[in-house]
């Protein structure tokens, strides 16, 4: 089966700045991939090349096996994309915008009508379907943009920061929508700054920095290589003596006080060591109220791979 998205030695230079350096990435069909990296890492540049908004300086990019630089029309035929925060034509309504793009993509008018109702319902914009978009909020525009990406039922969905500009409820709804899309065999490639969002939504994670791919693996595999820091909240204030006793435990690398009754413990080892640590902490006399991972596994991996000054 043809890979959904492939980049081969993809390079992009803006003057002296090298935004992408020989990026090689292969995304198989049907997976949801989170694309992470600090600002300026090359995430949006990659997405813009894949959606024909930028031309690469070198290398190749393929969508469903079709070269997106040489044959953008054919390559983008089965792609739905939301790049950055697009603006809508203020003179048109969401239904008219969907009709416009539906006709450009060759859908029949009956199909456009039917699909428009469905996708506007999916992004919860049915009530505003007949209103001109000039007065829409950023969140509403983002929802309509997502609706147009879904309209022609593409095999590949490319989202660049899909929850940016949305209120908390909107973020949750878009996240849930993407999770629903995952179950419908779409290949989803989404960039995000929100590590928890990626861990929650995606099957695989690609981390890019300074235009270079640092890691591309499943969320499950990356979770197993996390550092294993835990956050401990006690019922009573934790004394300095208790802190020192925790620090002296063999599996503990460091202890950091966050509040009078909360400490962060950097633990060596995996889940078994964390479980043993909890027993030891109780033995020291700390009454534990909460005991949980200090950061998500993806955060651990990200912080390890991306130097502090960039993240």
């Amino acid at each position, binding site marked *: 089966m043809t890979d959904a998205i492939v980049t081969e030695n993809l390079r992009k230079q803006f003057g002296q700045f090298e935004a992408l350096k020989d990026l090689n990435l292969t995304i198989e069909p049907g997976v949801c991939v989170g694309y992470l990296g600090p600002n300026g890492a090359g995430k949006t540049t990659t997405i*813009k090349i894949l*959606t*024909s*908004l*930028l*031309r690469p300086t070198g290398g190749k990019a393929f969508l469903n096996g079709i070269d997106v630089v040489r044959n*953008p*029309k*054919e*390559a*983008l*035929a089965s*792609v739905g*994309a939301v*790049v*950055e*925060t*697009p*603006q*809508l*034509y203020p*003179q*048109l309504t969401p239904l*008219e*915008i969907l009709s*416009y*793009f539906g*006709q*450009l*993509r*060759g859908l029949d008018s009956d199909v456009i009508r039917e699909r428009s109702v469905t996708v506007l319902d999916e992004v919860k914009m049915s009530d505003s379907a007949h209103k*001109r978009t000039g007065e829409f909020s950023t969140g509403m525009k983002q929802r309509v*943009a997502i609706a*147009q990406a879904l309209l022609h039922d593409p095999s590949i969905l*490319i989202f660049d920061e899909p929850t940016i500009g949305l209120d908390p409820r909107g973020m949750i709804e878009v996240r849930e929508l993407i999770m629903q899309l995952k179950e419908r065999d779409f290949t989803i490639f989404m960039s995000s700054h929100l590590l928890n969002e990626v861990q929650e939504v995606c099957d695989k994670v690609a981390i890019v920095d300074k235009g270079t791919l640092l890691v591309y693996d499943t969320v499950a595999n990356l979770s197993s290589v996390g550092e294993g820091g835990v956050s401990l909240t006690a019922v009573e204030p934790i004394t300095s003596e208790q802190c020192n006793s925790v620090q002296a435990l063999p599996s503990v690398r460091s202890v950091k006080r966050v509040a009078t009754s909360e400490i962060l413990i950097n633990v060596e080892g995996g889940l078994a060591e964390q479980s043993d640590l909890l027993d030891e902490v109780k033995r020291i006399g700390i009454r534990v109220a909460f005991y949980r991972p200090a950061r998500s596994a993806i955060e651990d991996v990200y912080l390890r791979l991306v130097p502090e000054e960039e993240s």
Partner: protein
Amino acid sequence: MPPSDLRQMAVVTKYELLKYLRGKRLLIIIALIAIISVLGLVVPLITGSGYDPDPTIFTSGILSEVGILVVLCATFFGADTIVSEFEQKTGLLLFPNAVKRHVLVLGKFIASAMISVGAVALYYAIAVIAVVVIDGSVAANTSLSFLYALAYLFGILAIAYFFSAIFRSSVYSVVLTFFTFFLILPIIDRVGSSVAHFKPWFSITFASGIILDIFQQPYPVDVVRTVERTFRNTTRTLTVAQYNPSVAQGLAVIFVYFIIGLILALYITKRREM
């Protein structure tokens, strides 16, 4: 599979027209046409000069502002068409579609041309109706003048699209389009003819002279003569020149502007990154 380029072009034109029909610019242009036409009909009455009984002179008088109308149409319906997709980020939605960039540009251009042709046609229709009502007949060559006006419109529109393709801000492309054809080229035309005594045949605004010259019988030709003027006991020989574009030359120049403007607009938009 996406439809053919031609079909996609028609779709782009359709929705661009819809945007124009719902925008304020069309209303402004219609209002301007009404004002220009009313002024052309009312001023002769106010000044007491009355209407010229010769329908040809009367028609060319009413249509004397067609050049300004064409420039305004190109400014309103062409000067920011491409740049706005980049500046206002609507292109982030439009360009990732399975549509070739040149199809988008041509679809937009056809829509700009159609709405502008409508405006110019309205202006001519008002003039023709007024002349028929007042003088009882239509001026000869009105239809040719209309066709030349459309040719001039397409030429200016193509250059407006070129400006729209190269600038990052729609303010620059709109201002440059308006001032190039309303001020800069007409100044070059006048300075060239009156002061430097060369024929500015290369200027599209000079070439647009054919729109009204066609009403004159016979068609005006270049006149260059010398006259002697005596001032404070000094006699000087002055050259007085009046240049007029021939129809063939005017149309050729307009055509060159149209082709170069459109090709550059297509090429730059295709290469332009977002």
